[in-house]
């Protein structure tokens, strides 16, 4: 029995021999840093969804204004306050009907009053609904809703304003996508300027250290001590209100966060041995900074920039909303929301579309930035 076993063993086993060369081979497929990050980003469904939403909005912002023949400035008071109407989508509510409400002692009187006060002819009314029967609460009045085909009432049956029109009869579709374009432009430009100034400032401050760092950090502290809004208002007073003024106002303090992050990273990295090695090889300071330090901070720079873009867009919208933003006829999402806000109970569509788009932008950027943070984190590398 034992003998049999021994014989079996020797036959079954073979010595494994690793040749010297095989020892050094790497079987893992070759992946660059960005490919690796992309694979990890792809696994994050939310981030990909955010990416798609952003790409869609970006494309629409570019091609949207060219999809119909209205321009952003073209005013036509005959076609003011038209609700959205889209060919083929009438069944979904985008039929150009506006609902007017009116009170009356009887049903007929209410309808009559409604037609009179809104200057609508009876033939354009497409439906009547009684919202309230007489009761003690409304002093025995009827409340009726008149569904009116405004396009027909204004004799504009052949026209289609996809997102409706504003108080001056300008096409909102064109204005909204143009506004998205301008909002995105401000966001990207502000983020880009923030990035360039912040990375250089932080990099230099962290790398040279000592007195240079001390002085540069004190400047940052002074700047960040001044309330942002004060600087913005001063800048807008100083420069003519417009794209440039807003962008400058946004970036004048916006780079501070980036500078601080980059400085912290550079402070950490500059004592790493690969930086010392580069210096013993004779690298100049500029080379060390540009080739060794900043490439190792790129992931953090990208993530921070991705969070800067939506906050810049939002801040611009906020400025426009409080009346410090762009001046008409240029529109941004902020100014569109601002004008729509005045009459949003009667014409809710004017507020609805820009609000949806700015929300999608915010959510898209934030989800994508969140996903990027996970994807670019070297600790997540497998």
């Amino acid at each position, binding site marked *: 029995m034992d003998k049999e076993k021994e014989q079996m063993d020797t036959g079954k086993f073979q010595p494994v021999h690793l040749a010297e060369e095989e020892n050094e081979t*790497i079987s*893992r497929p070759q992946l660059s840093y960005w490919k690796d990050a992309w694979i990890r980003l792809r696994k994050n469904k939310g981030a990909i969804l955010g990416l798609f939403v952003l790409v869609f909005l970006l494309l629409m912002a570019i091609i949207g204004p060219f999809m119909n023949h209205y321009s952003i400035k073209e005013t036509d008071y005959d076609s003011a306050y038209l609700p959205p109407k889209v060919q083929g989508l009438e069944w979904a509510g985008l039929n150009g009907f506006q609902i007017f409400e009116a009170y009356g002692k009887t049903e007929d009187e209410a309808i009559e009053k409604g037609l009179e006060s809104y200057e609508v002819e009876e033939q354009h009314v497409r439906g009547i609904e009684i919202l309230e029967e007489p009761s003690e609460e409304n002093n025995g009045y009827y409340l009726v809703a008149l569904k009116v085909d405004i396009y027909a009432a204004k004799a504009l049956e052949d026209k289609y304003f996809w997102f409706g029109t504003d108080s001056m009869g300008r096409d909102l579709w064109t204005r909204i996508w143009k506004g998205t374009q301008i909002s995105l432009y401000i966001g990207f430009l502000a983020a880009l300027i923030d990035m360039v100034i912040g990375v250089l400032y932080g990099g230099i401050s962290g790398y040279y250290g000592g007195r240079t760092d001390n002085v540069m950090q004190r400047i940052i502290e002074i700047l960040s001590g001044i309330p942002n809004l004060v600087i913005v208002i001063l800048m807008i007073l100083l420069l003519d209100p417009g794209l440039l003024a807003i962008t400058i106002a946004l970036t004048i303090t916006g780079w501070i966060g980036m500078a601080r992050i980059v400085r912290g990273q550079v402070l950490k990295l500059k004592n*790493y041995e690969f930086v010392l*090695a580069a210096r*013993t090889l*004779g690298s100049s300071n500029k*080379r060390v900074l540009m080739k060794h330090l900043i*490439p190792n901070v790129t992931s953090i720079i990208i993530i921070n920039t991705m969070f800067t873009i939506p906050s810049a867009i939002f801040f611009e919208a906020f400025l426009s909303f409080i009346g410090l933003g762009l001046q008409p006829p240029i529109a941004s999402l902020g100014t569109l929301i601002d004008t729509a806000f005045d009459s949003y109970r009667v014409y809710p569509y004017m507020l609805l579309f820009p609000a949806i788009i700015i929300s999608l932008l915010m959510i898209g950027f934030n989800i994508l930035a969140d996903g990027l943070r996970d994807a670019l984190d070297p600790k997540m590398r497998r």
Partner: protein
Amino acid sequence: MKREKILEVKDLKQHFHTGNKGIIKAVDGISFDIYRGETFGLVGESGCGKSTTGRTIIRLYDATDGKVIFKGTKVHGKKSKKDLKAFNQQMQMIFQDPYASLNPRMTVNEIISEGMDIHALLKSKNEKKKRVHQLLETVGLNKEHASRYPHEFSGGQRQRIGIARALAMEPEFIIADEPISALDVSIQAQVVNLMKKLQKDHGLTYLFIAHDLSMVKYISDRIAVMYAGKIVELADSEELYRNPLHPYTKSLLSAIPLPDPAYERSRKRITYDPSQMDKREDLQFREVIPNHWLLCSAKEMKAIKQKI
């Protein structure tokens, strides 16, 4: 035959300022010479100033005081760009931590050829590529590795990439700052043997910094023992092992375990008590036996001489 001195260190001091007007004397007046073609071992415990010495010699730090003379010219002080480049090319360094010493964003090819780029050693791309492949083979890696990133390599492989990076400059003098302390034992031998082979092939001179005495003995011709910023003893490696004079050296040697049960049973650790040693006056670095230097007082020197 008189040997050529490649590096002279004279009364080198390196002090660091800490916050509240405190001063750390990392290196406090050390002197030694390194001859061409030898391996000079520098040992001592953590924080005694070994690495600082190495980094000061290669100009990563400005010396507080003292002189470093490399091939007849002073290392520190202002230098023209040309002189600086020549210096950077002749003296190179191998680092301790193989995980931190390679830029994670660069391929092996870029890492190794960086020195060539800075000094414009090879012009054409093809030549550079060839040289990188050749260097990779010299350190026992193959040319497929050139396009890989550092994180794909093991510690030993990374250390060899670091060696290839230093070799790319064709230096005469290499400072090895604890090149093996982060590696496991089998890889340590591999790296040390590679360094020995390269020394023979390229006629290199090493300053080998380590805290592992047995490994230092294996590679070094002469050894200096450092303690608290000062060199306490310097001798040929055989001599130092046979006849340690300074109590700190004795303590260090007594700590080396040997795979010999009989010896291990009788081995006694000698503990070093610095408080006794600090009280001595008139401390100087003296040559007590030819080629055997010791930090001691005149009285002690006499006593040692009498013993012999």
